[in-house]
């Protein structure tokens, strides 16, 4: 028998873990990683419990401290928030499993406890944003998550503080714009509770302040989501952050922004306001479409796997934005599915990039050669599988995201978006096969560049240990398994997660 108040547990578990880890680890530093893992496992477990409840009972509201909304803060558990928390917590579990070793390798021992504490706080923010039913509370969680991320990025290589600072500047502006939007919304409606605002807006005429509020919120959340052209912070942050940070923020970070946009614009403001009164959905779709092409093209030009993956993320976030911007049920399902699918693919790819860094000391494409396939067969295989998923080869998950998005674009009779969705998978093929060719077919003897480097050559590298390999392979396997399960997920969860307007 489960207690009935499990709804706010995932963020709360992370919050308390974030406080407890530095204390407990004062004496035993090795404990930090274990505590984080246990906390994540618990949070993942409870988000699954929550999801099952939401599927069973529909929308459940949890009143924090017993205060009645709209005065008190409310947590909303519905299939949508249940689904997204489950996805990010399970991904976080896999990544943290992997981080156990990669943190040891990349970060000084004295920094382990604060590092894990920050990871916990980042996940607090992520879970809080998803669960909350209050506009201002969302802002607070947004900042909690972002502030911890700045720290997580800054412990990386030499350039990482600069990347973190740049992200901080843009992130703060984004948060500021969102807050300003909330201010305007409060001026118009006099409420900060999401459900309450929806009811009030239903009766209100559309006024300029409301439109200003919408626009500011879109910009603010767009920065967090890294929608083109607000993605400037992303490539550096992903590249220079330590591997465990990239691996945890790439699958989760931008998705939070995407989720917030879905929640606020589709559930609260409603379809009429964002498609007919203002062209917000259209703007989002167009920017995303441009971002897909732009990100894919820049990804081709990169020489560092992590940077390539970062630009690929800009493109993939575009898929989500495009799906939302299509503003029909197929597009929305495609976007939600891609939140999960892209999370899994990117987690897998970044874990492999981390494995390469651990064993080779670098993850530069031009220094890879075909001895890798013998020295690290499983990592390269996982990379290839994830790359195929990114390209959208059936029966991997990528194909199904593409399928729903294509359905959405055709239903809207928007042939240009259809072209963008389809062409981008070809562009993905170009930049991923560039890496695959090197990993499998580039002969070893043609390396002239690295005669003096102290790095381990690929031939001397070995496959990483089971702690690192297992999560990588689990993610890779999930790409195929979930591909087959997609109908089940769509039917049992996502169709219930659609806003009522569809």
């Amino acid at each position, binding site marked *: 028998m489960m207690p009935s108040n499990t709804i706010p547990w995932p963020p709360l578990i992370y919050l308390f873990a974030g406080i407890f880890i530095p204390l407990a680890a004062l004496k035993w530093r090795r404990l930090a990683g274990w505590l984080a893992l246990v906390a994540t496992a618990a949070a993942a477990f409870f988000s699954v419990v929550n999801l099952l409840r939401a599927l069973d009972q529909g929308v459940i509201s949890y009143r924090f401290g017993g205060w009645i909304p709209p005065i008190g803060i409310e947590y909303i558990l519905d299939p949508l928030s249940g689904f997204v928390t489950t996805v990010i917590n399970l991904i976080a579990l896999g990544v943290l499993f992997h981080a156990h070793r990669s943190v040891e390798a990349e970060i000084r021992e004295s920094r382990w406890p604060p590092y894990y504490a920050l990871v916990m706080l980042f996940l607090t923010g992520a879970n809080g944003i998803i669960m909350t039913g209050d506009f201002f509370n969302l802002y607070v969680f947004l900042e909690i998550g972002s502030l911890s991320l700045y720290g997580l990025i800054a412990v990386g290589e030499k350039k990482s503080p600069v990347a973190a600072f740049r992200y901080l500047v843009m992130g703060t502006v984004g948060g500021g714009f969102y807050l300003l939007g909330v201010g305007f919304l409060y001026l118009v409606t006099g409420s900060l509770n999401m459900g309450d605002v929806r009811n009030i807006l239903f009766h209100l005429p559309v006024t300029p302040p409301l439109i200003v509020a919408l626009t500011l919120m879109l910009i603010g959340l767009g920065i967090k989501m890294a929608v083109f052209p607000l993605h400037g912070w992303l490539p550096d942050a992903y590249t220079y952050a330590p591997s465990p940070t990239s691996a945890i923020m790439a699958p989760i970070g931008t998705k939070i922004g995407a989720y917030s946009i879905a929640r606020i614009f589709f559930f609260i403001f409603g379809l009429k306001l964002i498609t007919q009164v203002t062209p917000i959905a259209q703007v989002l779709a167009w920017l995303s479409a441009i971002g897909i092409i732009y990100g894919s093209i820049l990804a081709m030009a990169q020489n560092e796997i992590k940077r390539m993956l970062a630009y690929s993320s800009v493109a993939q976030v575009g898929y989500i934005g495009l799906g939302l911007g299509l503003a029909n049920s197929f597009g929305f399902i495609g976007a939600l599915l891609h939140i999960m699918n892209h999370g899994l693919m990117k987690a897998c790819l970044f874990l492999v990039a981390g494995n390469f860094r651990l064993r080779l000391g670098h993850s530069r494409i031009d220094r890879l050669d075909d001895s890798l396939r013998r020295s690290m067969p499983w990592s390269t295989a996982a990379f290839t599988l994830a790359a*195929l998923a990114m*390209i959208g*080869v*059936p*029966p991997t998950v990528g*194909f*199904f995201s*593409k*399928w*729903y998005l*294509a*359905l959405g674009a*055709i*239903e809207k009779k928007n042939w240009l978006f*259809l072209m963008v969705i*389809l*062409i981008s*998978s*070809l562009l993905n*093929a170009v930049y991923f*096969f560039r890496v695959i*060719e090197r990993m499998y*077919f580039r*002969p070893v003897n043609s390396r002239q560049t690295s005669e003096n480097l102290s790095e381990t050559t690929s031939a001397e590298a070995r496959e990483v240990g089971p702690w690192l390999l297992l999560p990588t392979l689990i993610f890779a396997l999930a790409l195929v398994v979930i591909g*087959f399960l*997609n*109908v089940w997920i*769509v*039917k049992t969860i996502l169709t219930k997660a659609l806003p009522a307007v569809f």
Partner: protein
Amino acid sequence: MVNWTTYPSLVPLLAVLISLAAVPLIILSARRPNLREFWTIAAGVGKLALVLSLLPPLLEHRVAVLNLGEIVPGVQLAFKADALGVFFALIASFLWILTSFYSIGYVRGLKEHKQTRYFAYFAVCLSSTIGIAFSANLATFIIFYEILTIATYPLVIHKETEEAIKAGRKYLAYTLTAGVFLIAAATWTYLLVGKLDFIPGGLLKNTPFEPKTAVILFSLFLFGVGVKAAIMPLHSWLPTAMAAPTPVSALLHAVAVVKSGVFGVIRIGEFVFGPQLLRRYHLDYLLLTTAGVTIIIASFLALKEDNLKRRLAYSTVAHLSYIVMGVGLISSPALLGSLLHLAFHATMKITLFFCAGAIYVHLHKEKVSELDGIGQVMPWTMGAFTVGSIGLVGLPPVNGWLSKWCLGWGSVVAERPFFLVILVLSGLLNAAYFFPIVYRAFFRRNKNKKTGEASPFMVVPLVLTAGLSILFGLFPDIGFKLFKIATDVGILIFGRLQ
């Protein structure tokens, strides 16, 4: 009208999976080549046996179906071993066994590297080809079609030379683009009719269309399957992909991959759009024009090509368009001709590729101009080559004449005698690019010092396929009842054989 009934059966799935199951065994026995090759052969024989077991019920008009549940909402991952599917599966699985024997001789003769990878991906390719054959709907078809694309890539770049890697890139660029178009077309179809099943006579038969929509949708489909079917101007990957080892060219680029393309054309033409729709919106003109142009141009390109394998590749391009043309002629004899050509071209062309490979392994010659007197060195090989050439020109008793005959009959029935002219012209061109090789081989002076044939692993399969070509030419119904099945498909689509 014959009544077709269905019965649930696991056999189609098993036929797909058996070669996939062989993959881990092949990889695990990498150090013991004989055991590894045993797995390949065993999987091949098992696969053929499974496909053959579908044959007797099929001849009684009972079709094996298997439904594995939804793959996307509203569309099942489903297999249906209908007449057309079994027809294709029979050819592919039978020729796989011969190709496997031949491959053993080839890779060992050349001491190729990474033989395990080679055999493993070969097995995956065959799995997906059978999957394509037995797909009951477009979604399942696309899944296997894309897997085939990816699984062929390691075979194309097998040599890992600069040239091979470039060929691989070109191959992927063409086929992945095509896959994307196919997905677009399938999603669109799904929105139009809400399902994607292959229905004899056309899934879209009763859908109201704007003419423009029909043309665009059909073009998307045609692009999607046309790349693998090497319709011009989408053909240029095929000659480039000849960088692959010869058995790969033989099976994949004369049978499995390209035939999956034309198989797709038949599925789209007869089972998605249906003959009525093709005629109503004049889509048959699209098929006929591209096919006709392809046949003539590819034949001329073959004529001026000196590399033997590339000449064969251009010849394949031309002959694939025979099949496309048969679909475009919209008459049951033409469809019969198409299907027969799908099978017979496979036996003839695989013979020719086998010969080219045997020459390459034994004498390291790739160019037509170097083949002087080679018939005196390798009489069996060049004898088989002659048989294949005669067949492709379309002369009896080799099987090519039969399919051409049916196609010609179809063009008369369809009242498009122009295409009879094209058939005759192309036959002459075939003679013009094949017979000089035969002439060189047998009547020019031999300068080779080496004597004797290549390894029996290679010679026996190619003599067998040549023999089969003659056998099918004389008795088309022998063994696999290919003629009967093909007629059944024609009757299924058009109601009767005109």
